[in-house]
């Protein structure tokens, strides 16, 4: 019984985290106006698009009799073309994401989840199907999928640096990768290559803490990764700054080049910037805006 009780309690605690995350994501998503998503042409769909005169080839079933009765011609009712797109997401849940340099700032993981879920909310509202990479949560539509996504995002991984899961990518779908991309770049390269092979295009958002961008450290310091698997000691931290920043810039350039090559889009986001601008960028990048 105690097991069941403990499970229940943990489940409640876990579930307790979901609604606020969802609510925040909803709120964030609310700031983006839907409207650029419809295909703006006749096709398969639910919404009325236009009446057009009947032409040869249209079957009698397609005639809209109510409209046609008001005139001598016969009209066909066309609906807007709506296709559902599949969007696969990967949000880095590794320990390195659970870092915030100041109590005023959100953790990187927190920001990444929020952005991912907000994008998911927008997509689901637009009628798209959203899922996770790796076959764990195949793309589906509907509000329930949002709950599942929120739950999946709340699971924390124990490894220090995350690697993208590139299995089970649906061909011609879209993808969203959110991570700090500070770990080994090789898995990222592999994943992107695989995606490009299947015609998957997407966006890659690097979420960084301002401290990682500024390296404001001095004096004798032992740097440890969040999971404590890596450590580096220096006697004079301010001496390392220039070289660190150089490496960071290198990493960013590498990622950007990778995206360029595979047709993805890359952007770097800092946790002290507003989540909304990042969401707008994500949304436009997803929607195949101007390349």
């Amino acid at each position, binding site marked *: 019984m105690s097991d069941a009780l403990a499970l229940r309690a943990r489940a409640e605690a876990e579930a307790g985290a979901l609604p606020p995350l969802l609510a925040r994501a909803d709120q964030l998503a609310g700031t983006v106006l839907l409207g650029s998503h419809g295909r703006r042409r006749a096709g398969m769909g639910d919404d009325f698009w236009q009446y057009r005169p009947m032409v040869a080839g249209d079957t009698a079933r397609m005639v809209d009799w109510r409209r046609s009765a008001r005139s001598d011609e016969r009209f066909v009712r066309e609906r807007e073309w709506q296709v559902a797109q599949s969007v696969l997401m990967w949000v880095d849940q590794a320990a*390195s*994401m659970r*870092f915030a340099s100041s109590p005023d700032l959100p953790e*990187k993981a927190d920001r990444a989840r929020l952005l991912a879920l907000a994008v998911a909310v927008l997509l689901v509202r637009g009628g798209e199907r959203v899922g996770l990479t790796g076959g764990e949560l195949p793309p589906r539509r509907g509000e329930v999928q949002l709950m599942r996504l929120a739950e999946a995002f709340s699971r924390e991984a124990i490894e220090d*640096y995350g690697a993208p899961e590139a299995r089970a990518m649906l061909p011609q779908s879209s993808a969203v990768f959110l991570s*700090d991309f*500070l*770990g*080994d770049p090789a898995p990222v390269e592999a994943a992107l290559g695989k995606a490009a092979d299947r015609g998957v295009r997407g966006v890659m958002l690097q979420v960084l*803490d301002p*401290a*990682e961008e500024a*390296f*404001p*450290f*001095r*004096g*004798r*310091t*032992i*740097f*440890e*990764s*969040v999971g404590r698997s*890596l*450590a*580096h*000691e*220096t*006697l*004079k*931290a*301010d*001496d*390392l700054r220039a*070289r*660190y920043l150089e*490496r*960071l810039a290198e*990493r960013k350039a590498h990622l950007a080049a990778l995206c360029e090559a595979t047709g993805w889009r890359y952007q770097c986001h800092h946790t002290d910037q507003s989540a909304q601008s990042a969401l707008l960028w994500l949304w436009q990048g997803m929607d195949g805006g101007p390349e």
Partner: protein
Amino acid sequence: MTLFGTIGFTAPWLLAALAALPLLWLLLRAVPPAPIRRRFPGVALLLGLADAEQVSDRTPWWLMLLRMLAVAAVIVGLAGPVLNPEEDAAEAGRGPLLILSDGSWGAAGDWSAKEDALEAVLAEAGRAGRTVALARLTTPGAPVFQAADAWRGRLADLAPQPWTPDGEDVEAFLAELGDGEFDTLWLSDGLARESRARLLDALEARGRVRVMQSDAAVLALEPPVFEDGAIALTARRSAGGAPREITIAAHGRDPAGAPRVLARATADFAAGGTTAETALSLPAELRARLTWFEIEGVRGAGAVALPDDSLRRREVALIAGREDREGLELLSPLYYLENALEPTAELLDGALTDILPANPDAIVLADVATLAPAAQESLTEWIEGGGLLLRFAGPRLAASDVSREEEATLMPVRLRAGGRTVGGAMSWGEPKALAPFGEESPFHGLDVPDDVTVTAQVMAQPDPGLSERVIAQLTDGTPLVTRKALGQGQVVLFHVTANAEWSSLPLSGLFVQMLERLAVSSAVAQPEPGDLEGTVWQPQQLLDGFGRLADAGTRPGVPGPELVSAPLGPDLRPGLYAGEDRALARNVVQADTELAPAVWPERIAVEGLDRPQETPLGGAFLLAALALLLADVIASLALSGRLRGGPAGAAAAALLAALVLAPAPGAAQEDADADAFALAATKEVALAHVVTGDPEVDRMARAGLRGLSETLFFRTSVEPAEPFSVDLETDELAFFPLLYWPVTPEQPTPSAEAYTKLNEYLRSGGMILFDTRDADVAGFGASSPNGRKLQSLARPLDIPPLEPVPEDHVLTRTFYLLQDFPGRHARRDVWVEAAPADAERIEGMPFRDLNDNVTPVVIGGNDWAAAWAVNEQGDPLYPVGSGYGGERQRELAYRFGVNLVMHVLTGNYKSDQVHVPALLDRLGQ
């Protein structure tokens, strides 16, 4: 003790530890600062980066220096450095030593320092094997030379006395001096005296003379004088110098009889000035309890002044038969009495039964015919105990039957019915003048002015004893003032009124003089020696040289003339002396006492008391070490990167330094805020509401007042500024004509100070509009929560009797003609101050001669603020009623608000407008 210049060390061997400093330097230098562990995901990018140089793990040299200095400061501090250590004065003479003290009160100021110096002199003389004699000029006696040690416990023999040595004392001392050779150490009090030169010559003839006297000027306090309603205090000093502020404390007894300081005043000596004056305004009750004044922080009998009866003023209670607020001031029965007595007496006001326990010196009844039996009984008892009852006649007394058939206890004579009127429009004869006063009369000797005439009076029945009781009469022989003794007291009747209705007596100076002669008023001046011939005064309390007041014990009495004029001495000590019916104080310093600094010839060595003081420096060194270590902590943190965030860290360090160095000022800020509030509130008329603590209600009240202000601005000549939210506890209320007070059940009850402020506000013409906002205030037993809260809020307030607004109340017509006062609710009942019982309707019109004051409170429950409330754009915030009827109701609510503000600002002006047609009619239009 080891000396290095002016600095000595109590533990010099500790300084050897300074040699270990270089070792410490090496040790500290070898140890790098401890590392910080930081979590940092970017470490993946750091891997493989090596440190460029290995030098930086050493502590920087300036930090080392800081630490070295700190350690050095600790070592030096512990070694006990002392600035100006006491040296052995090796300037000793030979032969016997006479230590001569002036022994006057002037030396009391730093007597303990003098004692210390004398101890040192005695010790030195003891070491040198000299014999010593101690002598005091104020108690001259033959000097007895003994071993110095024998005197050590007897320094008190030189203690200051509360008088100064005069020529006779010096002569007496010289007579006893003998011819032996001796050196002299003269302990001077620093005051100039004529006898000094002669004494100095005599002493110099016998040996070397040194003088020891304090550098500080001698301070003295003159006897307090009562002037212009305040106690004038004058302090003097023997020598001018830097400006100085002194505090004079008035000691006395509190109501429980315990001695304490009743008041303080500060006085300033100007630069070079020798007198400082101040005045102390105290209520009579406090003044009567004063026992002595002293300059705070100054010892000595000269710095103490004793007050006597000259500070007391007689207490006179004034009671009039009719006290009507509507009456004209100059016709008030008490107006002339008040003006005549005000400068010389304390006036008491109140009901007779309340006043009698205060035991005034005199009670004046102006045109009071009858008293309640209980009051009469206690009044009689009071008179028999020595009180003076002064009565004035008047229409009421003339019309009553008091003392008609038989003499009343509280009347000196029987009265005839009706009185008489002479020289009026309806009577024969001229107004009567006063006859000169007879020899037995207490008024004998006063000049009778010609222009004092009497037109009406009450007449005495010609009884056998009448002539004895008349102390003033008119030219035709009718009594004007009569008197009889009652027990130990007396009853005096003026047969005319106390105002100018019946005679011009109250207008003349004679009236004041007569009151003085009757001892109703008192003018106690310092008596002349001649006045006190034949009297003996018993000392009650006497001052010693240090200004301490002690019981006189069994000392003999002093003849009066001597008390006033003889110089102070062992037989006439300063203090408080009691005579038959008053007390006299003999003070050390009189207004004519000379205070000048003593001048010594060049050849005499004058030593001050203050040699360079020993100053231990250990504490300062340790403090410096602490400060250095603090700086080291901050520097180390900054160096190791633990003090991150540049400006914030610097600010924290600065704050830390500020905390260590100086306390921050705060009070000035409050004053500035209060001033700004006062300026903002008084620049223009502004309405205000009381902050209830409920944000919703407060916002509504403010919006309501804004709406009302705008309405007033558009419709009337009242142009109010933005309304204020007033916190009863902190804000000044006097600036606002109207306070709107919405009542909520949860609001906190104001503090006692706030209630004092509110009552002050109501008394000085302010108005509070209480709004329970539940349309349920008038029901009997008002049982709504708001109603109960209102009751508890208003209980401590000074609120007069109330009544529902009568239909002819001025509030119904100050701007608009109104019969209802709706707000968001439309209940009729609104309560205002009740009209006086005798208010009448004038000329059959529905106007009454209402009281002059604006009603201090208006109480209702119609939620007016909600009806008035508008937002920033001027649109109503809350719905009122529905449709057109609702808008009409809102309009009426605005009209009520306008009327209310007009009522506050114009008083009963609109009520007086009823007379305008009559006035115009009389003007012939």
